[in-house]
């Protein structure tokens, strides 16, 4: 039994050592990653300096908001901080981190995928847990036991390994263009969503969305809540909730959910949710016109 306990202790010791070593190696590669989603996170949480126009959201934003086009048109610097599959638990600490350094002129957040809260997506903010109090606050609130697991260095990069080593850097300031696709066809018609089911907003998500808007508005920035054009039928109860929260917070609504100049052109879409590069250009013209209309530039 003594020999067995010795072997067991050796295993535990080696496991901690391997975890420590792998955590440090992954930390280095995570900082150098060329994966656009992780790069955006690193930029927002670590390297953000002073951009004027910032876009927050998930894939419906990362593939639609062309930062370079904003700069060309307005002369203002811009960054697309959106990250595929990330909901409000990612956006809120990111905003707070950004606001500590600089107040942008415009903050836009998508209200479409706020409810993305899978553990796989929350892991994207784990690397900043130790040094970022906003991340710590959200993680401790949403996943109370996570602080214990995050003592393990390797666990910090849980589910991120493939992303860390996958990707190419095109310096697009966060924007990820999608190619047009030929198979967006007539068979992919508007899909009826079960009312109030798919896009029901859980209370904790609503809480952080309101907090996001309150922080953004009180910073002095002009804040837009973006509802994207998607080839799905609109979930009216969801949209009404978003409208009411937006109005109460003092933010402005930028609603493209019924913009048929976009919705009727399937050639502008990559799939039901994401615009392709041509669609992104059309959308940007519309977004910039709205911003101009509000005398931002």
């Amino acid at each position, binding site marked *: *039994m003594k*020999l*067995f*306990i010795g*072997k*067991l202790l*050796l*295993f535990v010791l*080696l*496991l901690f050592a*391997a*975890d420590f070593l*792998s955590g440090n190696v992954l930390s280095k590669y995570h900082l150098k990653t060329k994966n656009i989603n992780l790069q955006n996170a690193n930029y927002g949480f670590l390297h953000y300096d002073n951009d004027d126009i910032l876009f927050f959201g998930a894939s419906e934003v990362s593939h639609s908001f062309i930062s370079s086009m904003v700069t060309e048109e307005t002369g203002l610097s811009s960054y697309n901080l959106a990250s595929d599959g990330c909901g409000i638990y990612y956006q809120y600490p990111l905003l707070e981190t950004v606001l500590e350094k600089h107040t942008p002129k415009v903050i836009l957040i998508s209200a479409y995928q706020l409810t993305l809260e*899978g*553990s*796989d997506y929350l892991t994207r903010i784990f690397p900043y847990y130790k040094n970022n109090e906003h991340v710590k606050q959200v993680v401790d609130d949403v*996943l109370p*036991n996570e602080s*214990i*697991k995050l003592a*393990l260095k*390797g*666990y910090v*990069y*849980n*589910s991120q*390994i*493939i*992303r860390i080593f*996958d990707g190419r850097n095109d310096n697009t300031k966060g924007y990820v263009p999608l190619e047009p*696709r030929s*198979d967006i066809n007539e*068979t*992919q018609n508007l*899909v*009826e969503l079960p009312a109030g089911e*798919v896009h029901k907003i859980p209370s904790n998500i609503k809480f952080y969305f309101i907090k996001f808007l309150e922080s953004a508005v009180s910073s002095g920035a002009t804040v837009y809540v973006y509802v994207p054009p998607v080839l*799905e039928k609109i979930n009216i109860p969801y949209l009404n909730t978003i409208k009411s929260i937006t109005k109460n917070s003092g933010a402005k609504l930028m609603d493209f959910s019924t913009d048929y100049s976009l919705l009727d052109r399937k050639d502008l879409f990559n799939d*039901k949710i994401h615009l392709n590069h041509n669609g992104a250009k059309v959308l940007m013209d519309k977004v910039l016109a709205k911003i101009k209309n509000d005398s931002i530039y």
Partner: protein
Amino acid sequence: MVFTSLNFLLFFPAVIILFYITPIKYRWVTLLVASYFFYLNIEPVFGLLTAIITLSTYFFTRLIDKVKDDKKKSKFMYINIAVVLMPLFFFKYFTAINDGIFNILEMYEMRWFLPKIHFLLPVGISFYTFMAIGYTIDVYNEEVEAEKNIGIVALFISFFPLILSGPIERAGNMIPQFKSDLKLNHTNFSTGLKLMLWGYFMKLVVADRIAIYVDAVYGNLSHHNGDTILLTSLLYPIQVYADLGGYSLIAIGVSKILGLNVMPNFNRPFFATSMAEFWRRWHMSLITWLTDYVYTPLAFSFRQYRIFGIVLALMVTFALSGIWHGATLNYVVWGLMQGTFLSIEALINKRKSKIENQYGLKSNFFYLIFSVCLTYVLFAVSLVFAYDASFKDALMVFDKIIFKRGSLFLDKTTLAYAFIGVFMLFLSEFRDEYFPKTLLFFNNKVFVIRLVSYLCVALLILWIGVLNGGQFIYFKF
């Protein structure tokens, strides 16, 4: 408290320490206290149910043992089965039946006097109910003696590694072990830890990773095309296997560490070459239970109908198995599909064997691959009905797969992580199935190879496991 929660990782070492410091004679008491603590931790009121089932089972098994009259014995057995089944029926089927009546009467603009009521299903109730029934029948059949110590009966019904999702153990195996001198030894400890490590790998790396993709697609059927749904339907059986198989390995490992041998629940089911063989390898504790207490008595009763009696017994047994899983039309269809597959095999078995022998097919590699794939696909088709969805949704799955093709929804990172897990799982099972005792890792004679293997699996769990403390699929049954 689930096996994948941090609470369990604190609870189990505490149990081991308490178990170790308790005098050998009273170690079963420690296990009983730990089991009730484990179960009450989920929902205190559930403890009442296990206590009622324990009291009733103890009382009636003692009566069965005492009385000499067969009629009285049989009466006591049926009374206890009825008492034990009552909570299961109430919590599992009352809501479904009430909702069904409610909906039917509503269609005819009539009112049902009861509102729609939804009770929280006590976790594991189907499992410990079956264990209590099995014990009662075994006492009636004089296969085991009625236990005189109520504490031991209580431990048998509530034993914490098994209470939530089995394996559905037999009194004949467990009670003598609970009464024996339970000792901790390094062989059991080492074997148990290995089983637990692999169980966690199956659950966290394989099942929970596939679940991300499966839930995204099955949870949003109207958004996805046939090709994506086809891939999901093919992945789902692996998820269910890794989930319940992983749970079972952890349960068996935990028991082993405490010096108790629990029956295996799976035996590489996806290498089966027929549905009959598949069901000898899949959820073995449930199937042997159903075979012993339902199928065999039924087949005996229907023996005058010869092969059709067997078919009838199979259909009834698997329909019951479906109802055991859930009180919905989907589960009944799932059960009847299994019964149909097995009945067809029973009907053509002789002819099939003759052809296989005539053409030497049993040793033909391609025939073997074909049989394994066919068995897998048949099971996958039936499992479409076993996902938490309506009957209409299940039909939509087939409609989309056949008529509404399209490009695959590729969640690349999720699928890549899932592929790593599935590849390792199948490689290990392929080795065990066709080349046992070769290329060993966990059981290699060289200590360094064993150590490196444990480390690799543990690190993989840490790096790519879904460590969010998610539930096991079979908790809902």
